C-alpha cells in the first residue's frame, strides 16, 4: 500500500460523520492514485462537469431521485465556492440516501417482503439497519449467525429466503460477500476455478446443522397436553402381568387399557393442537449440532467416499481445526465477516465503488477469480483499507467517494468494453434505475416526500411478534381456545371453497345457456358467500384471545395497509418485488430472484408506458405539483425554464431557448413538450 491512511482505527462511533478534513484527504488520495495510474496509461481524465450536470447527478447517485426545480435552482443560483461539497454532505445526511441504499441491499440480498412472514421481518430489520447506518460487517454477521425463529431474530430471513436450498444459500453467500462463484462445485470440481466439490462441501458443513424447525412449538404443546407429540405409544406402570390371579389380571388389563386410551387421547390432542403452530415452522430456523453434511451418493473423486460425513473447513484463508459442532455457525459468520478475510472488505469496497461510479475497479463484482485485472490494483488495496478504517461505515465510505474529483468529472463518452477493466477517465453514463424513475415522477407530482416512511410495515411486524409471544406464553386453556378457533376457521374455509366452486359450475352452465336471470341470482349468492367469508365478518365473532393470537396462527400475515398512498412514498417503502406489468417491473426493477437482478435494459413496453401510460398522464395532471406549477406560469420563458429545471435540472441555454420557446406558447403545446422531454434520453440517462 503506497499511502497510509490519515486515520486508522477510528473509535467505534458508527453514527458520527467523519471530519471534513479526513474525508477530503482520503478522497484526494484516491484521486492521486487514479491520476498516477492514468498518467502511466496515457489517459486523459474528463474535465470537471458543469453545475447542472453535477446537481442532477448528485441527487440521483446519492439519494435516488431528481432534484426538484427549487432544489436545482437553489444550487445553480448559489455563488458559494463550497457549494458542491456542501451539497454532497447534505445529501448524505438526508433520508433519501437511506432509501436508495435500502433498494441496493434488498436487490443484492434478494429480500422479498411478502414471501413469508419472515420476509416481512427481514425487510423491516434491513430497513432499520440502513436507517441507523448499522456497520456493514455487523449487518452481515447478524444474518450469517442467525439461529432462531424469525420472530425472535428477523435477520434469520437471510437463511429462510433459501429455505430448503442450503447449498444454494452458501453459493449466494460466497458470491455476495466474497465475490466468488462456486455454484458449479456443488456437483463437480469447478471447471474454471480452483474450488473443488470437496471444498464446497467443507464450507457448507458449517451450516450442516440448519433445520427449519421450531422446538418451542413442540415444547409448548407438551406443556399443554402433557405428552410429546412424537411420543410413541408406550405403556407404563402396571407392573408384571400375573395371569394366574384372574381378577387382578382383569383389573390390570382394564387399567392398562384405560391408560392406553388416555395416552392416545393426549396424542391426538397434541396432534390437533399442532395446528396452532402449523405455520411457526415456516419461519423457524435452528441449528442442530448433531447433524452433519455428507458427500453425495454420486461423488466421483478420490479424496472422499460417497456418503462420507464432512468436517467444516474455510474456503480460503487460514485453515481451522476442531470446530465444536455447536459453534459451527458462529465460526462461519466470524470467518466470513472478519477484517482479515481476504475478500470481505475488498468486495464490498468494490461494490460500493460500482454503486457510485457505475462499474467496479475490479470489473466482475461477483467473480474476482475470473475477473479481468483491474487497471489500478493499488486503488483496490486503498479502498479496502478505507473501508476497514471507517469500521465498515457504508455511508461515510460513500461520502469519501462522493468527495473525489472523479465524482465531479463528466461521464466518459464511451462505455466500458465488455470483458475489460475500465480506466475511469470519468464516471459512467447510466440509465436511471427503475426506482429512480418512479421516485422522480413521484417527487415531481408530490414534492419532496423523502421523509415519508412506511411505518405500517414495521407496525405489522411488531404486531406479529407480539402475537407470537402471546401464543408462546399462553395458558393451556388459551391454547385450546385458539386451536378450536383455528380448526373452525379451516372448516369454514373449506366449506366456502366447496360452495363457491359448486356455484361457479352452475354459473357457467347458466351463462352458456343464456339464462340471465339465473346468472344474476347466482352472482348475488356468490357475493353473499364471499362477504361472509371476509375478514371483517370473521373478526366480529372473535374472542380477545383468538384476536391476539391471529397474526401468529394464520398462514401468512398480511401487512397493514401502507402508511401513505403510493404517490406519497419512495419505492423503498413499498413491498417488493413488484408484480410483472407494474411500472418498476417493466423498467427492470429487481425481481429479488437472484442477487442484483435489477437491470436497465430497454424494452418496448417501457417506451409505450412513457409515451402512453398513466404515469406520464398523472404527471401532467393539474392536480400534481408539477403540472400545477407550470399551468400557473404565464410566459413561455417561465414555462420553458420551469420544465428544464424540473426535468433536466438546468436553465435552458440561449440556443435551447431559440429552439424551444416556440414550443411552449400555449399550455397544451407545453404538455406535448413536457412529454417529449420525459421520453428523451437526456431525461432517462444520468450524465
Amino acid at each position, binding site marked *: 500500500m503506497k499511502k497510509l491512511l490519515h486515520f486508522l482505527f477510528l473509535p467505534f462511533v458508527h453514527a458520527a460523520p467523519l471530519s471534513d478534513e479526513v474525508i477530503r484527504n482520503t478522497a484526494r488520495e484516491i484521486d492521486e492514485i487514479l491520476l498516477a495510474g492514468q498518467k502511466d496509461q496515457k489517459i486523459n481524465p474528463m474535465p470537471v462537469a458543469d453545475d447542472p450536470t453535477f446537481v442532477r447527478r448528485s441527487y440521483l447517485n446519492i439519494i435516488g431521485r431528481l432534484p426538484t426545480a427549487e432544489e436545482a435552482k437553489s444550487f445553480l443560483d448559489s455563488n458559494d465556492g463550497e457549494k458542491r461539497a456542501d451539497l454532497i454532505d447534505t445529501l448524505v445526511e438526508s433520508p433519501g440516501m437511506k432509501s436508495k441504499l435500502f433498494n441496493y441491499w434488498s436487490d443484492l440480498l434478494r429480500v422479498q417482503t411478502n414471501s413469508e412472514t419472515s420476509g416481512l421481518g427481514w425487510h423491516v430489520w434491513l430497513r432499520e439497519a440502513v436507517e441507523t447506518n448499522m456497520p456493514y460487517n455487523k449487518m452481515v454477521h447478524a444474518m450469517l449467525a442467525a439461529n432462531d425463529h424469525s420472530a425472535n431474530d428477523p435477520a434469520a430471513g437471510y437463511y429462510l429466503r433459501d429455505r430448503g436450498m442450503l447449498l444454494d444459500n452458501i*453459493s449466494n453467500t460466497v458470491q455476495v460477500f466474497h465475490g466468488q462463484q462456486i455454484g458449479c462445485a456443488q456437483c463437480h470440481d469447478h471447471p474454471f476455478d480452483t474450488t473443488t466439490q470437496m471444498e464446497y462441501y467443507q464450507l457448507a458443513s458449517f451450516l450442516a446443522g440448519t433445520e427449519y424447525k421450531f422446538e418451542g412449538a413442540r415444547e409448548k404443546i407438551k406443556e399443554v397436553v402433557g405428552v410429546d407429540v412424537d411420543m410413541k405409544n408406550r405403556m407404563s406402570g402396571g407392573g408384571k402381568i400375573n395371569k394366574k390371579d384372574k381378577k387382578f389380571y382383569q383389573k390390570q388389563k382394564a387399567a392398562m387399557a384405560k391408560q392406553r386410551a388416555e395416552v392416545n387421547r393426549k396424542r391426538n390432542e397434541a396432534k390437533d393442537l399442532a395446528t396452532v403452530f402449523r405455520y411457526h415452522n415456516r419461519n423457524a430456523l435452528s441449528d442442530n449440532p448433531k447433524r452433519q453434511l455428507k458427500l453425495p451418493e454420486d461423488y466421483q473423486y478420490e479424496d472422499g467416499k460417497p456418503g462420507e460425513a464432512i468436517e467444516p473447513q474455510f474456503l480460503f484463508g487460514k485453515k481451522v481445526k476442531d470446530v465444536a459442532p455447536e459453534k459451527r455457525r458462529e465460526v462461519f459468520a466470524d470467518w466470513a465477516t472478519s477484517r482479515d478475510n481476504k475478500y470481505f472488505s475488498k468486495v464490498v469496497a468494490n461494490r460500493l465503488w460500482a454503486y457510485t461510479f457505475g462499474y467496479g475497479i475490479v470489473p*466482475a*463484482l461477483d467473480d474476482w477469480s475470473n475477473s479481468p485485472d483491474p487497471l489500478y490494483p493499488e486503488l483496490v488495496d486503498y479502498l479496502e483499507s478505507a473501508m476497514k478504517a471507517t469500521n465498515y461505515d457504508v455511508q461515510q465510505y460513500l461520502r469519501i467517494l462522493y468527495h473525489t474529483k472523479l465524482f465531479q468529472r463528466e461521464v466518459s463518452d464511451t462505455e466500458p468494453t465488455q470483458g475489460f477493466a475500465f480506466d475511469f477517465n470519468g464516471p459512467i453514463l447510466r*440509465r436511471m434505475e427503475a426506482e429512480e424513475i418512479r421516485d422522480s415522477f413521484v417527487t415531481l407530482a408530490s414534492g419532496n416526500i423523502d421523509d415519508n416512511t412506511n411505518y405500517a410495515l414495521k407496525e405489522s411486524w411488531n404486531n406479529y411478534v407480539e402475537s407470537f409471544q402471546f401464543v408462546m406464553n399462553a395458558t393451556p386453556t388459551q391454547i385450546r381456545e385458539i386451536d378450536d378457533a383455528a380448526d373452525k376457521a379451516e372448516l369454514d374455509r373449506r366449506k366456502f371453497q*366447496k360452495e363457491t366452486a359448486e356455484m361457479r359450475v352452475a354459473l357457467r352452465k347458466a351463462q352458456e345457456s343464456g339464462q340471465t336471470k339465473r346468472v344474476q341470482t347466482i352472482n348475488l349468492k356468490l357475493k353473499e358467500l364471499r362477504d361472509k367469508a371476509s375478514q371483517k365478518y370473521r373478526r366480529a365473532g372473535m374472542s380477545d384471545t383468538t384476536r391476539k393470537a391471529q397474526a401468529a396462527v394464520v398462514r401468512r400475515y398480511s401487512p397493514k395497509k401502507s402508511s401513505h398512498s403510493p404517490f406519497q412514498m419512495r419505492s423503498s417503502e413499498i413491498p417488493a418485488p413488484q408484480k410483472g406489468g407494474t411500472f418498476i417491473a417493466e423498467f427492470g426493477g429487481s425481481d429479488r430472484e437472484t442477487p442484483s437482478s435489477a437491470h436497465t435494459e430497454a424494452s418496448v413496453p417501457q*417506451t*409505450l*408506458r412513457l409515451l402512453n401510460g398513466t404515469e406520464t398522464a398523472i404527471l401532467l395532471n393539474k392536480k400534481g405539483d408539477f403540472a400545477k406549477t407550470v399551468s400557473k406560469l404565464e410566459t413561455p420563458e417561465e414555462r420553458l425554464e420551469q420544465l428544464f429545471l424540473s426535468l433536466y435540472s438546468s436553465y435552458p441555454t440561449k440556443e435551447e431557448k431559440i429552439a424551444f420557446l416556440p414550443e411552449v406558447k400555449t399550455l397544451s*403545446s407545453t404538455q406535448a413538450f413536457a412529454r417529449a422531454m420525459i421520453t428523451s*434520453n437526456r431525461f432517462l440517462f444520468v450524465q
Partner: protein
Amino acid sequence: MNPVKKLDELSRRSFLANTANTAFGVTLGGAAASWFNSAEAAEAIAQSKGKAKHVIYLYMSGGMTHIDTFDPKPDAPEAYRGPIKAISTNVAGIQLGQHLEKTAKHADKMCLVRSMNSTQGAHAQGNYNVHTSYTMRSSITHPTLGSWANKLEPSRLKQTLPPYVTVHTANNHAGAGFFEPNSGPLPVGDAVMGLQNSKRRREVTEADFNRQIALRSKLDQDFTDRFSKGQRSVRAYDEMFNSAVKLMSSKDLEAFDLSKESKGTHTAYGSDKFSKGVLLSRRLIEHGVRFVEVQFGGFDWHSDNFTKAEEKLPILDQAYAALLTDLKQRGLLESTLVVIATEFGRTPKIDDDAGRNHFPKAFSFALAGAGIKGGTVYGKTDETASNVITKKTTPADFNATIASAMGLSHDQVVFSPSKRPFKMGGKEGQPIKEILA
C-alpha cells in the same frame, strides 16, 4: 448493474464489434437484424429444418391431475379413479378423461406423453424445471424455451412483433433467465385488455403525438451526438423508441386486438380469460410471433378434485379443441406445435378431502401439430397411474423434443455470464426421436 454479468462469451465478441442491436433481441455472431429492414425475407425461417415454426405453449399452473385427464385408468379401483369416466377418442385405443370430450375428437393430431417423471414436487421448483430444463437454483436463473429459441435462431421475419410473448404468466416466470433481458417475452397481463399502452392517449392528438416524436429527437440532439457511438444502451433506447412508435401504428398491433375476431370464434373458444388467451395466441402466431405461452392457473386441487375438474377442465377442453380446429382450418397446424404442460401430476389415490396431492413421479404432457406424430401415445404408467413403466421422460427430455421439432439444437452449449455451460435440452435431455415426425 454490472454489464459484464449479463453477457455470454459469444455476445461479448459481437459487442466488441460495436454493432447496433435489434429492437427486440440481441443477435448472435454480430449480424444485426433490424425489424424494419425490408430486405430480410422469410427465407431465413425457411432455412430452419424443423417443421414447427411456431409454438403455442399452454401451461396448466398448479400441477394438473393426469389420471383425470390424459391418462385415465377406467379399470382402477374407485379409490383411484373417482367418479370420472374414460371416453374414447377418434383414435382406437386412446382414451381421455370424460371432461375432455371435445379434445377427444382431435386425438389424431396429438401425441400423449404419459411417462413424464420429475424430481421436483414443489410448485416453484417444478414450474421452473419444466420451463427451463434445469433445477431451480438461487444462484442463477435459466432461460425459458421461448428465449432459447430466440437465442439459437434469432427470428428474422419481417415483422414488428416480438418473437416471444407470454399471456397471463405469473411473476416467477423465468423469462430470459441469464440471456439479455430483451430476449425475454413481451408479457401480456390480460388477453382481453391486449397490449397495454399501445394506443395514443385520448387527450393527445395525432398532430401532438407526431410533434412530440420530432421534439424528442431535437431535445436529444446533443446527447445523441455525444453518446450514441460509444454507448450501446443509448442506441438500444433509440431503437426501442422507434420500434414502439412503429408498433403503435403497425398493422401487426391488431394481433393483440381480440375484438377483431367474430362472435362465432369467441363463442367457439369460450368466455374464460384463459380461452381469450388461447385465441390471442392463435392471432399472434398468425402474425409471425414464434413462441407464445398461455398460462391457466388454479390446478392445485388438494381438495374437491372432482368439483374443480368439472368446473375447469371443460374450459381447457373447449379452448384447446377450438385452437386445433382453428389452426387446421387456417393451414397453420402444419407449422405450429401446441404443447400442454404442467409442473407435476397429482396423486392417483384420492385423499380424505376428495383431493389429490403433488405427484411428480408420473404425469402427462400433450403435443399436437407440427413436427410430431399425431394419434400416438408415448410411454406408459401402471394400472393406477402411480408409476412410469416404460419410456420415462424428464421435462428436459420433453424440452429437447420441442427443440428438435423446431429444428433447433437441444444440446448446443451457450455459456452464462458466470461461465457455466447450458443447453436448451438441459443437462442431459434427449429428444424423443420416436415421436418426432
